[in-house]
């Protein structure tokens, strides 16, 4: 039974409207002016060059992570371990830079190697989850969750232990790297590195082409939708599972590496900043297809950055962004559920 093409966007629009309504209600419940809040977020995101570039800075890791997650979602996996993979990438990058620092290697090359090390670190962490699943039968949700915590623990241990600042260990992270080891930014003060944006856009483009246009991508889809049939058709399913973990880990590690080399220039306790989980949300919202990933990620990044000012200007908590994002995804999910149930009841079987 074919379901009418006009129905899907109708349900989605309804979901968006409901999400906005609920968020507005939440605002009213705390006696906060909704319109002022939305306006403040908008201004906080696009009001000036400075915040605009901050949005782009936030967009980069989010887009990278989403690109990787789309690969794992295509093959049917819930890679909740993505946060740990970002952290792992950041740790490896920091380790590499610390080793090169003060040495004779050209800083540009050092950064490049460090980024590669970060990608390797993320890939390693992801493949751990994959191995636990493939050989140990451990569900990737719990394996990933557990390894997230382990990665955070390792990170904290390094920051407060072997890599701590001389004197007193500090929550602000390890000793910052010298300027020459920073990814080139637009100006001295800015955190915006154009090369990072290029990398992120290339990443999503690569994933789009990979999934839509290559044999590999088609096989991923097959494994994700019916792994038994995929196996019978000759696809080595467990290998594809491992490879997609590796690819996602690569992107996550890359995100972590960029956070270290371009944004913070050191390792900090919350280096992954929740981008991993946010990436999962973006993926769910775009229904796991790469076409809309970049704009939706940009929108989510804008929400995050735009709400930073809320506590200062309107005395509201900046988690309003999270509320907006969460209600959007929740209602889109529920709308999809309602739609498919309505379709099943209304239609007749052939």
């Amino acid at each position: 039974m074919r379901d009418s093409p006009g129905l899907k966007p109708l349900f989605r629009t309804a979901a968006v409207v409901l999400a906005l309504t609920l968020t507005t209600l939440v605002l009213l419940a705390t006696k906060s002016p909704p319109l002022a809040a939305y306006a403040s977020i908008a201004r906080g995101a696009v009001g000036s060059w400075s915040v605009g570039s901050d949005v782009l800075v936030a967009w980069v890791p989010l887009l990278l992570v989403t690109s990787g997650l789309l690969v794992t979602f295509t093959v049917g996996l819930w890679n909740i371990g993505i946060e740990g993979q970002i952290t792992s990438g950041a740790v490896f990058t920091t380790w590499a830079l610390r080793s090169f620092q003060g040495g004779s290697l050209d800083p540009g090359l050092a950064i490049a190697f460090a980024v590669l090390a970060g990608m390797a670190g993320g890939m390693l962490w992801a493949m751990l989850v994959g191995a636990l699943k493939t050989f140990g039968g451990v569900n990737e949700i719990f394996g990933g969750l557990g390894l997230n915590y382990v990665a955070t623990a390792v990170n904290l241990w390094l920051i407060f232990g072997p890599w701590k600042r001389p004197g007193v260990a500090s929550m602000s992270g390890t000793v910052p790297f010298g300027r020459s080891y920073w990814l080139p930014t637009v100006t001295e003060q800015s955190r915006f590195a154009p090369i990072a944006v290029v990398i992120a856009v290339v990443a999503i483009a690569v994933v789009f082409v990979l999934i839509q246009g290559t044999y590999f991508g088609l096989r991923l889809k097959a494994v994700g939708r019916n792994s038994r049939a995929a196996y019978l058709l000759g696809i080595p399913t467990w290998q594809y599972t491992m490879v997609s973990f590796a690819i996602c880990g690569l992107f996550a590690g890359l995100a972590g590496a960029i956070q270290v080399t371009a944004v913070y220039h050191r390792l900090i306790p919350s280096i992954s900043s929740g981008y991993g989980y946010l990436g999962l949300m973006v993926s769910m919202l775009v229904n796991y297809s790469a076409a809309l990933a970049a704009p939706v990620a940009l929108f989510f990044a804008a929400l995050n950055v735009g709400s930073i000012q809320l506590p200062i200007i309107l005395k509201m908590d900046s988690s309003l962004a999270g509320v907006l994002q969460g209600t959007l995804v929740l209602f889109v999910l529920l709308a999809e559920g309602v739609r498919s149930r309505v379709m099943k009841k209304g239609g007749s079987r052939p």
Partner: protein
Amino acid sequence: MLIELRDICKTFGPVRANAGISIEVASASILGILGENGAGKSTLMKILSGFQLPDSGSIILDGEAATIRSPADALARGIGMLHQDPLDFPPLRLVDDIILGSKGRLRPDRRRTAKEFRELASRFEFDLDPEAYVDALTVGERQQLEILRLLWLGARALILDEPTTGISLPQKEKLFATIRRLASEGMTVLFVSHKLEDVESLCDRAVVLRQGLLAGSEVPPFDTRRLIELMFGKEVPQSPHLRIARGGEVLSARGLCLDSLRLQIKDLDLSVRAGEVIGLAGMEGSGQAIFLASCAGLARPVAGSVRIEEREMTRASHHDFKREGVAYLPAARLEEGLVPGLTLEEHFILAEGRRGLFIDRRSAEIKAASRIASYNIKGRPDSPVEELSGGNQQRALLALLRDDLSLILVEHPTRGLDIESTIYIWSKLKERCAQGTAIVFISSDLDEILQYSDRVIVFFAGKVSPPLAAESLGVEELGRLIGGKGWEKFEEAVRA
């Protein structure tokens, strides 16, 4: 309890599972219900036991009309069903399994229940310990547990669905003794089976279902021939067999031993030559499926060897078998054979294998269109496969096969298909035979088996017949073997 089913009808989509069935069962009697796969037995029993509601018709218990809305409802009225795979709870203790679902106080008196259980078990000479765990029991013991539970809950009618599958001979004899005893004490028993000997030795009366209708009713002494004729229909004159030149050996199984949850196959020997068609007959769950899977590397043999064209393949993976030119087509087309959500074109791309990194959509579409045309599939390259009809899905599965295969293993090639599709599918398969491909197929349709096979192998409860020439095999003989009769001559031959 006197059970009357009047004019029961149930339709699933285009299939009429029950087309107006009327049966009467008296108390203190054992009624056998026979029929081949798809005859409508399980649907009828599901209706009686509350798992399904009939579209029309009525159920009358002890003279009063009854609407049975759920399994619990059925049990409340005294009708209990013993499923082929008993619906019990493996991690629980026996006594807890019995208590689950029963009515009573908040805190069940486990000790008293255990005592009552022990008494009931000893009455029937069952050796069950109420404190043991369900997952430690054999299939036969789980059946005993379920029977006891139904009795404990006051069942006055018992439906047994293929109960003798997967239990040992002593357990079967004990089961039959139990059934006879229960019947003598007033129980109404419905005994659903495909095993002729069991029905003939146990039942007071037997009804045969065929294609959703009641084909006939017989009383002892049973005439096996008549029962088979009712179950499978009359002889159909066959089209003459095409003689195709046989080539070298393609598949060889020697001393193959296979183990599954319910049965064991021992010492299977088979040699299949190029261009041959071997039909595997037998009721579902008799061993054909696991044997077929082992020929494709999808089931690991416990002992023995499998060879493809002289190559030792016993421990090889399914993908190794594919590389040797073996193809496996599963019966569940959409669940195991095709990927819902992908289009026909994408399936062809997947089947073809890799040609570089990027997919050339243009040429893929052209290739897909040509395959669709040559297999007469009613669909376009961009049709999602779940939208195709069953017949077209099967054609698609065939179209996905490589051109130069040495062996095609297919489970139920024409199940659920109309005549036209059936004839077309077989014409395509026969084309392959002419090119030297061997075919081994499973089917529940005796006519299909006899018409298209060169040799037939019959499976019954893990027993395997030697390959029999299809030309000299008739429906009656085949039906007899499927029902478990006439196997002595094979055993004698082996001993000789």
